[in-house]
């Protein structure tokens, strides 16, 4: 599958800013699909609202660009409506961790058979760079002009604690690990979550003396620490730090299997 088999060339140019990390994740996604010989017809992508949420419309797959925060709930219905379909949610941190937090929590708790890639740029990029629940302490956003005094949400850690089958966090500075994590998620049942910390030079870097995306990548690299060194509570550090690595990799039964056991899907 070539790059242009997976993406809709006729929809180029895309809306993403120069230096945005979303393209890097899309590239990793395509490579993961290519290396594992996925057929795009067997996948459906669901997204909410925000920059990242616009990405599935550029893929040659069935895609549903939905309401702010509700991507995981839409995807839940889609998956249960046709369990043969592979369903991936592709959206941002504002969408999934903030307004969609409740759906994230309960899909993870149910071990719903979905793959979720949450691109975490630490702000609301599309609406102009406001604070998000994943903004690191001290950094500037348009709604925290004196620097962020809010505590940060450890989304990948949360998902792991809820019993999901897979949860990991990497950054775009570890793009090979991003691809490997996607490959790990593809064949797994249950809820699989990947958080990718990513750069937004336009609305984040610019306000934090990192307007050059290379500076942001450098910042992510320097401020990343592997989970094996700090443990799962690393996210509660009060310094800007990205805890990277795999937080959960289990093989509990997925929701579809449990529904089948309960007696749904087959008439009697």
């Amino acid at each position, binding site marked *: 599958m070539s790059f242009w088999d997976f993406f809709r060339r006729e929809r180029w140019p895309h809306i993403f800013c120069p230096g945005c990390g979303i393209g890097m994740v899309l590239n990793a996604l395509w490579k993961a699909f290519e290396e594992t010989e996925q057929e795009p017809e067997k996948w459906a992508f669901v997204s909410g609202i925000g920059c990242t949420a616009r990405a599935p419309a550029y893929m040659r797959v069935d895609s549903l660009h939905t309401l702010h925060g509700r991507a995981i709930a839409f*995807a839940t219905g889609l998956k249960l409506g046709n369990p043969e379909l592979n369903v991936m949610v592709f959206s941002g941190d504002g969408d999934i961790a903030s307004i969609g937090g409740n759906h994230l929590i309960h899909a993870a708790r149910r071990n719903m058979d979905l793959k979720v890639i949450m691109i975490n740029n630490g702000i609301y990029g599309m609406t102009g760079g406001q604070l998000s629940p994943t903004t690191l302490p001290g950094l500037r956003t348009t709604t925290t002009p004196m620097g962020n005094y809010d505590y940060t949400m450890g989304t990948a850690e949360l998902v792991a604690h809820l019993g999901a089958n897979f949860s990991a966090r990497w950054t775009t500075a570890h793009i090979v690990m991003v691809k490997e994590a996607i490959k790990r998620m593809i064949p797994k049942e249950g809820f699989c979550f990947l958080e990718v910390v990513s750069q937004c030079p336009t609305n984040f870097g610019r306000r934090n003396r990192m307007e050059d995306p290379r500076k942001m990548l450098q910042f992510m690299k320097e401020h990343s620490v592997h989970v094996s060194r700090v443990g799962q509570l690393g996210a509660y550090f009060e310094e800007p730090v990205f805890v990277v690595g795999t937080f959960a990799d289990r093989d509990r039964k997925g929701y579809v299997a449990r529904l089948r056991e309960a007696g749904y899907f087959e008439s009697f």
Partner: protein
Amino acid sequence: MRRMMTGNQAVVEAAVRAGCRFFSGYPITPVSDLMEYMARRLAQVGGVFIQMEDELGAITAAIGASWAGKKSMTATSGPGFSLMQEGIGYAAMTETPVVVVDSQRGGPSTGQPTMPSQGDVLQARYGSHGDYPIAVLAPSDIQEVYDLTIKAFNIAEALRTPVVLLMDAFMSHMAEPVSEGEYEILERKVHPPGPVERPYEPGEDLVPPFPVFGRGNLVSVTGLTHDEKGVPRPEDNRVHATLIRRLFGKFERRKDLLEDVRTMGDGRRLVIAYGMMGRLAEALVDRGYRLLRPRVLWPAPTGPLKREMAEADVVYVVEMNIGKYSLVVKRVAEELGIEVHSISILGGRIPTPSELEAMME
């Protein structure tokens, strides 16, 4: 054969009969038992049931299942119906068939959880932001709950639209015999498997065939203003106007499905009532009143309203709210120069026919 059913049971039986195989809900009085009954019933027929984390998730999961090709529905009451409005707007914009039951209770806010009301009659029509059409049905007895639930699915499928079935707390739990006769069941037009270039290109009836996910149609669906290819075009005024006018246009072409009223009696005093109040007002027909009872409230039955009002000297609109549907009737009556009286009943106690007649004098 006739079976005793409550309103909530009749919804479930009729939905299953219409081909509904997906339900997502969230517990709320007075439809919790609808959901409980559905959880068991869908297991018997090979369907899927999920209790979601909230009503935002309930409506959106139902829409998601519809994109997998399933006939799907949810049910709620006032507070949950408010939360579902964003999903209803999304279904209208993306043209997703889905049925929403709103069993009305007294509001605003938590209000009167166990008491009947018709306070959501305008919310059902205009609750989501922006310009969109929607079909709203109001049964007056349990047989009609059954019949109109099937009709709700038929409208949803034929027009690719969300449809609201408005019940109330009383009707949800009232039991009556229902006969399950012959029904025409409509199915949505779908694209054949394989890539589809212009998924929103409408047919004669202005309804585009439905691209079921997972059949290689490879379509991108969005709640943003989109052209016939499904490409977001949010800043193109013509694309937006064309899309919205087509949504309204497809409703105008299906008057056969959407114009549905019952008329009784032949006096010069016309009573207009719907749902539970329609049933109450039937008792006035023997007392010399003419009755117009819309079963489809929205789109508003302008034609029948004009016809019946032309035969009347005075019009009463009886409803269990502050007088919401009377606004619709007054708009039509103004053209004819007829006097319209709003009979507004609040609090959830259903008056006797004599009490109602006294209110009208």
